C-alpha cells in the first residue's frame, strides 16, 4: 500500500499532513503507536525543512510518500531546499540536568529513536530522505 501528498513550505500544512498520516494508518491498519511515531517523524523533519531549508521567500513544494509492505513501513520526503542530511546531526545529551539542557536538537533524536533505518541522497536540486520502520 502506498500513498503520497504534496504540501507547501508552510507550518500550517502540518495539520493536513497529520490528517494524511492518520488516514493512511487507518487504511493500512497500522497500530496507533506506529501512526503516532510516523506523525512525529514527519512533523520533526518537515518543520526542519520549512524552518531552515530555504534561502528565499518563494513557495516550494515538498512531496511525502508513505509505503507499507509486509512488516516494513517507509517514509520518503523529497524537498528542493538547501543540501542537508538532518540525520548526521549530533544528538543532544539527554542525561544532562535541567540547567545544562539545550533547547535544540531533540527532534532528530526522536526521529532516529523511533525509526529503524534511513537513507539520504542529494539528487540535483532535491534532498531525498527515506526512513524505514520495522513493525514488531
Amino acid at each position: 500500500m502506498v500513498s503520497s501528498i504534496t504540501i507547501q513550505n508552510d507550518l500550517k500544512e502540518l495539520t493536513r499532513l497529520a490528517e494524511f498520516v492518520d488516514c493512511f494508518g487507518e487504511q493500512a491498519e497500522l497500530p496507533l503507536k506506529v501512526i503516532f511515531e510516523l506523525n512525529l517523524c514527519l512533523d520533526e523533519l518537515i518543520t526542519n525543512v520549512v524552518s531552515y531549508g530555504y534561502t528565499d521567500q518563494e513557495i516550494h513544494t515538498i512531496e511525502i510518500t508513505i509505503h507499507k509492505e509486509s512488516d516494513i513501513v517507509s517514509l520518503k520526503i523529497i524537498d528542493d531546499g538547501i543540501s542537508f542530511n538532518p540525520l548526521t546531526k549530533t544528538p543532544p545529551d539527554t542525561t544532562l540536568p535541567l540547567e545544562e539542557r539545550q533547547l535544540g536538537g531533540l527532534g532528530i533524536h526522536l526521529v532516529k529513536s523511533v525509526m529503524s533505518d534511513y537513507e539520504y541522497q542529494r539528487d540535483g536540486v532535491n534532498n531525498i530522505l527515506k526512513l524505514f520502520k520495522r513493525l514488531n
Partner: protein
Amino acid sequence: MEWTEKKISEIVVVSVNGRLDGATSPVFDQGLQILLNAGEHKIVFDITQLEYISSAGLRVFLNTAKKVQKSGKVVLFGIKPHIREVLSIAGFDTIFSIAESEEDAIAVFQN
C-alpha cells in the same frame, strides 16, 4: 491546540489539549510567557487531554522549567503512554517532576 489556566493558592494549573507541534507550540509558548512575566513560578501542566507532542512542544516545557527553576518548579500529570515514550526518549522523565493526578501534582509543591 487549546489551553486553560486556573490558580490554586500559589500554583497555576495549565491544562493543554490537542496537538503541540511545530505550528501550535509557539502560540502556547507565548501564552506561557505572559504567565511567567506576571511572576508565576509554580506551574502544573495537566496533559490528560494532550493527544500529540513533538520536539517543539517538549521545548515549551523545557523552556518553562528553565525559566522558573531558581524559585519554582514545573510538574506534569496525566501522561498518555505514547507521550510518555516521547518524554522518555528525550530524557525528560529525569528532569521533570511527574505526578499521577492533579492532587499529587499540587502536593509536590507542599513538600
